[in-house]
């Protein structure tokens, strides 16, 4: 709870700092505040198996919410460190950008610790409304404008579906509380209202829009390409992870006993997502757009945990999300640096990078290997947990499809490695600031540590 309070008060402090022109203090204050929030979150870790919901059953802070809050906060800290000097190029009023990112993070904390469908809706809205603004912060840039409008229209549209689903579930079960809904499902196993089934389907549609799973993914590539790279990074890591945490929390708490009904629907969505994400990514010339499609395919892998809902699902999502977030931070950090030099997002911009910037090329290689799921990196461990969860449900075909897709994904991730190491181009050295060195190096080391010794975070939830 203290975490949420700190993260909600911090942006207001930042806005005041901006008002009094304390530009230099913004980043340090943000980082210190987030570290305090992180400490508060870690302190809430309990060994108690049955933590009680607070505020009349609105919120429930258990180990699940602590783990996902910690991942979100750490990713946000790393992303904000990359923002050193980034927002100044867009506008002189930079306090607002930090504040809006933190408001969005507050929504994410609500999303991972809700215990009532009202809070799920409020959390998603706090996060989304902030992101609509962030997608359009380059006011004169057409691509950024377009991304903001598309994200806004699609986001509002999907909220409508989510709300209609919540309403139908309320109509059938008579409550928004997750425990009451679960008890209602358990006591009415045979004659569940058709309203309730329709409600579940509409909630699936709404949440799949938010996490960018096919066939509701069409907004994602445009928005990710048009938004400024740093905001794209925030959207494709922290926001996506929070979306899956909310998805998993709802389905494992309420609907796990009627999995026979919704599982086939999600199975089809998962398979379509994997194929569309991976095959379209093969044809992209722009690295940024390739990362957008790759994030769609990773949404497909993350859906595995919900398709094969079980005791290990939360752990699998946690591992996969951590690995994916850290690797994406490296990839986008590299992209921002290369783009500052060459001015384009294309693969050609990376040609010959290894000769001039061995460090940058090395961390980018680690990140690509991790995203592709090569052993000894965190991405492999994440995929391993996902696939073993599905295998425990004897869903061999799904695993075969997933492995085929993992092989397809190697082609497009390795294009970057080939461009960096085997294509030669005349280029000057890319200047890597100290902040970037720290974030990229830290992320690469964590990726390898998790890959070699996963036990230190795998048993947490």
């Amino acid at each position, binding site marked *: 709870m203290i975490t949420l309070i700190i993260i909600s008060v911090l942006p207001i402090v930042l806005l005041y700092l901006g008002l009094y022109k304390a530009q230099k203090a913004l980043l340090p204050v943000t980082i210190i505040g987030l570290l305090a929030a992180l400490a508060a979150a870690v302190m809430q870790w309990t060994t108690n198996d049955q933590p009680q919901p607070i505020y009349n059953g609105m919120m429930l802070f258990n180990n699940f919410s602590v783990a996902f809050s910690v991942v979100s906060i750490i990713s946000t800290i790393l992303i904000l460190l990359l923002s050193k000097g980034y927002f100044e190029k867009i506008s002189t009023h930079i306090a607002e950008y930090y504040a809006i990112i933190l408001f969005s993070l507050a929504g994410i904390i609500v999303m991972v610790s809700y215990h009532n469908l009202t809070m799920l809706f409020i959390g998603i809205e706090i996060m989304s*409304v902030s992101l609509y603004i962030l997608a359009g912060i380059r006011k004169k840039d057409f691509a950024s404008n377009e991304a*903001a*409008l598309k994200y806004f*229209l699609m986001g509002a549209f999907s909220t*409508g579906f989510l*709300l*209609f689903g919540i309403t139908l579930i*309320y109509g059938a079960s008579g409550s*928004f509380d997750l425990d009451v809904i679960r008890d209602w499902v358990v006591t009415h196993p045979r004659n569940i209202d058709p309203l309730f089934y329709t409600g579940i389907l509409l909630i699936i549609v709404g949440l799949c829009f938010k996490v960018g799973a096919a066939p509701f993914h069409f907004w994602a590539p*445009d928005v990710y390409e048009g938004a400024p790279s740093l905001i794209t990074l925030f959207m494709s890591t922290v926001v996506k992870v929070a979306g899956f945490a909310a998805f998993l929390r709802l389905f494992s708490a309420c609907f796990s006993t009627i999995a026979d009904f919704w599982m086939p629907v999600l199975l089809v969505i998962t398979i379509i997502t994997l194929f569309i994400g991976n095959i379209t990514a093969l044809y992209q010339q722009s690295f940024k757009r390739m990362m957008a499609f790759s994030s769609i395919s990773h949404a497909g892998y993350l859906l595995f945990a919900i398709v094969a809902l079980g005791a290990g699902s939360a752990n699998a999502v946690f591992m996969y999300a951590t690995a994916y977030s850290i690797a994406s931070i490296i990839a986008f950090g590299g992209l921002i640096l290369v783009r500052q030099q060459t001015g384009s997002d294309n693969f050609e911009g990376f040609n010959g990078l290894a000769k001039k910037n061995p460090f940058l090329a090395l961390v980018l290689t680690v990140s690509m290997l991790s995203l592709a799921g090569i052993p000894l990196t965190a991405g492999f461990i994440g995929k391993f947990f996902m696939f073993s969860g599905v295998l425990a449900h004897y869903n061999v075909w799904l695993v075969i499809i997933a492995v085929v897709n993992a092989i397809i994904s190697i082609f497009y991730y390795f294009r970057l490695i080939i461009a960096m190491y085997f294509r030669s181009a005349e280029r000057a050295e890319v200047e890597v600031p100290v902040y970037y060195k720290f974030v990229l190096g830290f992320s690469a080391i964590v990726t390898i540590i998790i890959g070699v010794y996963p036990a230190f975070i795998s048993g947490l939830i």
Partner: protein
Amino acid sequence: MESLTQTIQAVPLNHYILLSAIIFSIGVMGVLLRRNAIVIFMSVELMLNSVNLLLTAFSVYRGDASGQVFVFFIMALAAAEVAVGLAIIVMIYRNTNSIDINVLNRLKW
């Protein structure tokens, strides 16, 4: 208050569900078919209002106030969304002099 509840309950619940589903579908079709950003926006509001209507009806039939409280949350957040959304549309109008979403094809769909 008592008479208000009775008035609402005079109409069978199924009719509320059907009416809301129809209004919701009109909203969805509006979002998918219309090309003007403001009209799309109005269609989204139509979807949200059909949800509000249905929540109120369920809440009255169940005798449970939490549904009506949810309606207030939806209204407040829809207002926040309108503020941000109209700002985005104004920003686009300044750059393109149009609010037709067909102008926005620089990024391929």
